């Protein structure tokens, strides 16, 4: 029986292209550490560990789409970006992918740079761009935050899936031709649109729950004018 695999397996993308993306991922994660350190204080550090652990757990929960023939699972970029910010958020997803590859045999070790680029870098960046945009125009209510989490997740997941298409265009091991690549791009986008809906529901539920319990722990709500529904996202609250 085939073992459960959720990420890019060995042999799918050529070695040299995988190596280039490994170098890119390393550079991007280094930048995330440098910028993320500004956000990482004594309070955010354990919270970020929890976000990584939570994403690991929810990634195990494949939910059925297409009436059950195909499954999808959380990628987590948008969720992490909302809860701990884009820099630390990307690192959270990367930690999950590294643990999955090195310990659980999911996603080839040689393919780690590709997987990190798609889900940790592209997924989190796309998600955060949407969050930054939407939280400016939407009301700061549970509904506003839920819509933000949902839309950011859908865009994040589809963007991550197209990162794979770029990689496959550069170094796909099986030559599928231009039309085949277009078809693959369409299939990936369509499936991941549906997965994004599932991810959006999970993300919206999670961030609204955290915002109700501890609004000060939601990174995306920091510095925003406090709304009645989510009071005190300021530093003074800590006392």
């Amino acid at each position, binding site marked *: 029986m085939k073992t459960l695999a*959720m990420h890019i397996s060995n042999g799918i993308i050529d070695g040299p292209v995988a190596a280039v993306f490994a170098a890119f991922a390393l550079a991007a994660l280094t930048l995330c550490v440098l910028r993320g*350190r500004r956000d990482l204080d004594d309070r955010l550090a354990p919270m*970020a560990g929890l976000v990584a652990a939570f994403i690991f*757990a929810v990634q195990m929960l494949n939910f059925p789409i297409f009436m059950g023939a195909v499954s999808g699972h959380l990628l987590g970029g948008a969720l992490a970006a909302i809860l701990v910010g884009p820099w630390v958020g990307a690192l959270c997803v990367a930690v999950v992918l590294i643990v999955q590859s090195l310990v659980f045999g999911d996603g080839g070790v040689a393919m780690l740079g590709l997987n990190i680029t798609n889900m940790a870098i592209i997924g989190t960046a796309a998600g955060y761009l949407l969050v930054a945009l939407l939280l400016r125009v939407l009301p700061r209510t549970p509904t506003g935050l839920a819509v933000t989490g949902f839309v950011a997740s859908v865009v994040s997941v589809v963007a991550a899936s197209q990162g794979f298409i770029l990689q496959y265009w550069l170094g796909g091991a099986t030559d599928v031709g231009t039309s085949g690549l277009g078809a693959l791009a369409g299939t990936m986008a369509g499936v991941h649109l549906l997965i994004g809906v599932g991810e959006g529901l999970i993300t919206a539920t999670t961030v609204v729950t955290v915002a109700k319990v501890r609004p000060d722990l939601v990174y995306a709500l920091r510095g925003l004018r406090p709304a009645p529904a989510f009071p005190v996202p300021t530093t003074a609250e800590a006392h």
Partner: protein
Amino acid sequence: MRRSRMFLLGGLLVALVLAGVVSNFASSHPDGLDSSLRAGCTFDADDNITGGSCPALREQAHELETGPLAGYGVRGIDNPYLSTGLSGVIGVLLTFAVGGGVFWLARRRTRNGADATAAPTGTTATTDPTGATATAARD
């Protein structure tokens, strides 16, 4: 800070239940990526490729496929529910330890010199100074 610690414990508990119990009810169908890569090939009941052409044809074995937790199961435990659940619990704790550890080491030390010298390592570090010093420094 007590409330932060309670929140962490609560969050970890939710993650442990999801990975340890709910994971057994997850769909075992190929995920979005996998199914896209399999389009064009035919498969037998054991999921081996029997014909056609698709990107999944070139898939190779994982470097660490014989690891003790490979494939989200614990090697040597025959009960599938126990095997999946236990691997999930280990995974959550491991991810929290690795992630939390890295973030704790990389965190911005407070300007208060006393705090920076008390470079915390080990288990007490993740639980102890969460609130007091940070709060003091922030003021």
